[in-house]
């Protein structure tokens, strides 16, 4: 797999994603030096949502299925961490990830099996309904889930317990270290997602997205591919939930409520869903946008909703899409001027 990632593509145009990615990585690695503690924390949340959006977009951008129930997997990841803490006394971040992902995979596989028998509107409604099942369970079984109060998750230990954050000065150390930890996980997951969407499997997904009939006439088992995409998508978003809860310190049913699924859709379309980097940009930008909206007005939903509508009207391909179209236009005018 190392060779797969290192192999350089043919034409110079194809190099852009790798160059851009490398530059972005350098920026992200260096930036905490220039940001205060609060901003670093915010950026950590942004990277976490970027992972969630990347996972979500495997289904939307690459497979053509719009899910309105991805809060289920995010919440599943978060609550699994809380349960691992409560029932098994686990504090290790690595164990949270190692044990949390299979749980999410199983539920995604189950939900996916139910949902991929349908397409378009019914697929979306069904994903929403299933996420509401989890939401109502989290509310109703309050003696297990803490109900609306939720469950607390204190700072975990990183790197197999080597690093812990007890004692004085623990909080700033945690914020800084956790940022790099999340950054590392983010880079790894982005790389994995990159390989997935550029693999033969990924090409098959896109073919199914573009033309289900023709895909079938190439002998592809359409439903199976969609189910596999669903499984991967849910697991990725669950990873985001797993990373989120130790930072937030608390998980509540809100994270399973369907408007949160809407936010995931929002941020993906904000960044641009026909593009690999769109969800990443969208996840980070949305996190900052929402935080500033909430901080600046009581009516942040009004603000966010208006921004969303205006954005869809003006930037149909999202931020990244608009930028790449701009780049294309600059390139062609330059070539025309020659």
């Amino acid at each position, binding site marked *: 797999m190392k060779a797969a990632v290192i192999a350089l593509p043919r034409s110079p145009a194809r190099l852009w994603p790798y160059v851009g990615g490398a530059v972005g990585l350098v920026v992200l690695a260096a930036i905490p030096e220039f940001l205060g503690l609060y901003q670093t924390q915010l950026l950590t949340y942004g990277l976490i949502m970027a992972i969630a959006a990347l996972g979500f977009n495997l289904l939307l951008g690459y497979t053509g299925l719009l899910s309105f129930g991805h809060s289920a997997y995010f919440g599943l990841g978060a609550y699994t961490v809380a349960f691992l803490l409560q029932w098994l006394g686990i504090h290790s971040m690595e164990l949270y990830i190692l044990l949390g992902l299979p749980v999410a995979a199983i539920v995604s596989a189950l939900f996916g099996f139910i949902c991929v028998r349908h397409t378009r509107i019914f697929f979306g409604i069904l994903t929403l309904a299933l996420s509401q099942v989890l939401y109502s369970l989290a509310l109703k079984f309050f003696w297990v889930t803490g109900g609306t109060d939720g469950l607390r998750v204190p700072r975990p230990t990183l790197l197999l317990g080597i690093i812990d954050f007890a004692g004085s000065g623990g909080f700033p150390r945690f914020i800084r270290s956790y940022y790099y930890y999340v950054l590392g996980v983010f880079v790894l997951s982005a790389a994995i997602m990159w390989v997935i969407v550029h693999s*033969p499997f990924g090409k098959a997904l896109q073919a199914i997205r573009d033309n289900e009939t023709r895909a079938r006439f190439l002998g592809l088992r359409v439903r199976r591919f969609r189910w596999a995409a669903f499984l991967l998508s849910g697991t990725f978003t669950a990873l985001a939930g797993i990373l989120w809860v130790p930072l937030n310190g608390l998980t509540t049913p809100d994270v399973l409520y369907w408007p949160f699924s809407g936010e995931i859709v929002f941020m993906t379309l904000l960044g641009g869903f026909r593009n690999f980097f769109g969800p990443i940009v969208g996840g980070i930008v949305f996190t900052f946008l929402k935080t500033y909206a909430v901080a600046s007005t009581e009516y942040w939903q009004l603000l966010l909703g208006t921004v969303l509508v205006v954005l869809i009207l003006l930037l149909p391909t999202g931020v990244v899409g608009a930028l790449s179209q701009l780049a294309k236009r600059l390139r062609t005018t330059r070539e025309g001027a020659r």
Partner: protein
Amino acid sequence: MSLLRTVELRKRFGALNACDGVNFAVEKGEFLSLVGSNGAGKTTLVNLITAHLEPDSGRILFEDRDITSMTVAARIKAGIARSFQLVNLFDGLSVFDNVALSIFAREGKTAKITTLAANDGDVDREARDVLAEFGIAAKSELPAGELAQGERKLLDVAVAYALRPKLLFLDEPTSGVSSAEKAQIMDTVSSVVRSGAVTAVVIEHDMDVVFRYSDRIVMMHEGAFLADGPPDAIRANETVASILLGTPSPA
């Protein structure tokens, strides 16, 4: 042994008898044209053979194996492929990826999730060869949705051809293109198909094209075969002429 044989194939759509006990045989290596007016049953016949539709009764034999109940995927594996009248491409993928995907599908490699598609040298080479044969290699990096209509038609055939079928069905490969382009497309298609030793059945309306390129012409009318033979014989057939041109047949 015929490459393909249908035995008393029937399909009705309500009152319309699209296939009325059709006994169709295709010999290996031929370039066969299936002609007839609209509604004669040509596309239905092809849909039945390629598993797009299920027959009401009758059997389909491919290399003497009964494939009547086989799924689309199984028939493709057996060696039957088709292109579409209304171009059916993966518009979001590049021209190259469209053909490459066909090859990946054929080779059973579409489950590969841990390697980059671009790194498969074999598939890469073969895809470039196919694109070159069809004359659209220059556009290989463009999204399929951005090609001109004639090129899209060629790509549609190329995608089916890349499955390396034994029997290839082409549904109106020259429809919707200018007459200048028609000859170009058919030249390419027929030369590629013949050099690849693929048996081809082409649904066509343009009789000039049909007479120029076919080894054998089969004419359908109201779900049944009306005429079957080499171009010269069909040209001389008066019943055919009357159906095609509308003059009353000599009773």
